[in-house]
C-alpha cells in the first residue's frame, strides 16, 4: 500500500513538473517571436534581419535580393511572414526624412 501511494505521488509530481516545463518552453518560444518596432518599422526579433537589411532602400539592395540563393530567400520570406501578419493589420509609421525612394517605379497608382 505504501509503495502504491508512493507511485501515485511520483506520477503526480512528474506530471506537474512536465506540464510546468512545457509552459516554460512555450513561453520562451513566444518571447523570441514577439514583434517589436524599431525605427518605426516592425521588426521580428526572432529573425536575423535588421530594419536596414529587411527593407530595400536602393537598386543595389534590390539586385542583392534578386541574386539571393534559395536558403537566403527562404529566410527573407520567413522574416516578411513574421511581421505579425496574423494580427490582420500592420501599422507602419511614416518615414522620417526623404520620402522619395531611390528606385524608379514603372507606374504610380494615385487618386484618379
Amino acid at each position, binding site marked *: 500500500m505504501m509503495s502504491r501511494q508512493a507511485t501515485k505521488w511520483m506520477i503526480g509530481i512528474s506530471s506537474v513538473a512536465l506540464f510546468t516545463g512545457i509552459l516554460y518552453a512555450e513561453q520562451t518560444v513566444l518571447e523570441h517571436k514577439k514583434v517589436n518596432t524599431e525605427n518605426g518599422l516592425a521588426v521580428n526579433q526572432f529573425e536575423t534581419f535588421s530594419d536596414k537589411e529587411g527593407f530595400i532602400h536602393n537598386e543595389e539592395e534590390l539586385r542583392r535580393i534578386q541574386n539571393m540563393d534559395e536558403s537566403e530567400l527562404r529566410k527573407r520570406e520567413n522574416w516578411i511572414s513574421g511581421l505579425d501578419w496574423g494580427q490582420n493589420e500592420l501599422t*507602419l509609421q511614416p518615414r522620417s526624412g526623404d520620402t522619395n*525612394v531611390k528606385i524608379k517605379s514603372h507606374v504610380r497608382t494615385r487618386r484618379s
Partner: protein
Amino acid sequence: MDVHTFRAMNTEISVQISNDFVNPDWKVKVTDLFTRNEAIASRFREDSELSQWNATVTGSPFRASKDLYNLVKEAWNYTVSTDFKFNPLIGTALQKEGYDRSFEQLTKAQKLQIAIGEPSLEHGGVGSEIIPRRDTLILSDDEHILVKQEHADIDLGGIGKGWTVDQVYHLLHHELSVSSGIIDAGGDLFVWSQQEPWIIGIQHPFEESKEVMQLCVRQAAVATSNVLYRSWLHQGQLKHHILDGITKKPVFTDIVQATVLGPSTTSAEVASKVICMLQANEVNGWMEQHFPGYGYIFMTRSGNIKLNRYVRNYIEEMV
C-alpha cells in the same frame, strides 16, 4: 515595350505591352474601348446614353444598350454587396454639392488645392432621407430594361474607369495573348507579367511628387482613392467627391487615401472608395466581410500607414 498614351474619361490613359506581341490594331482597339465607354457612361456629356437615361421620368423603363446595362448591373451588384456604401445614385447629390461638371472644368476659385480638414468639421450636404432598397433600381436581363425608383441621377464615375481597364486587360491578355503589360487609367491600374514583376509606386497624398512606398507586383489590379485631390469649396463649405451612398453626403474620417489590390480593377476601385468613407479602425473588419482576400494600404491624416495581410498575396516585395 510598346507604349500607347491618349486622353479619355478626363484623364491620361497609358498602356504598355511587351514587345513579343505583334498586332498593328491594338492601339486602335484600346482607344476605342475607352472612348466608347465614355460615350455611354459619362454624366458630363449630354449626348451620352447615361445622360439620356438620367433625363427620363422616374419609374419609366429605359431600354439600355448591352454595354450600359452590364455596367449598371455590375455597379448595382456592388451597391447591394457594400450595403449601399457604394451607390451610383449619387449624381444629383454630387451636382448639388457643386460637382456639376468634370473636375478639370471647375474654376480655380472652386477647387481647393490641398485641404486637410479636421474630421470634426461640419459639412453640410444635401443629405438624403430616402432609405436605399434593393428594388430602388430594377434591372431586366431579357431586354436590358432599367428602371429607377428614386428621383436621382446615376453617376458611374466610381466604377466606369476600372470597368474599362478590366475590359482592356481581357482584350490584350486573353484575346490578343499579350504576355506582359500595364494599363494605367489615371492611377487605377492593371498589371501582369510573365517576366520580372512591375514596381508600382503609391503616390503620397500630401506630397504628390513623392511616393509612400513601392510594391513589386507580378499580377494585380490596383486602385487608389483619396479625399484630398477632388475637393472644392461650395457655398463656403468643404466638399469632396466621395459621398456615402446611404447619406449622400461627403464623409470626412481619419483616412485620407486608400489603395486596394485585387483581382479586378472594378472591384478594387469600389473598395478603395468605400475605405475612404470608413474610420481607420473599421476597415479591417469591413474588408474581411465585403472584399475577403483583397489587400489594402491606407494612410491616415496623421500619416500612419496601415496594411492588411492580404497585401502579401499580391506583392513579391515591399519597398
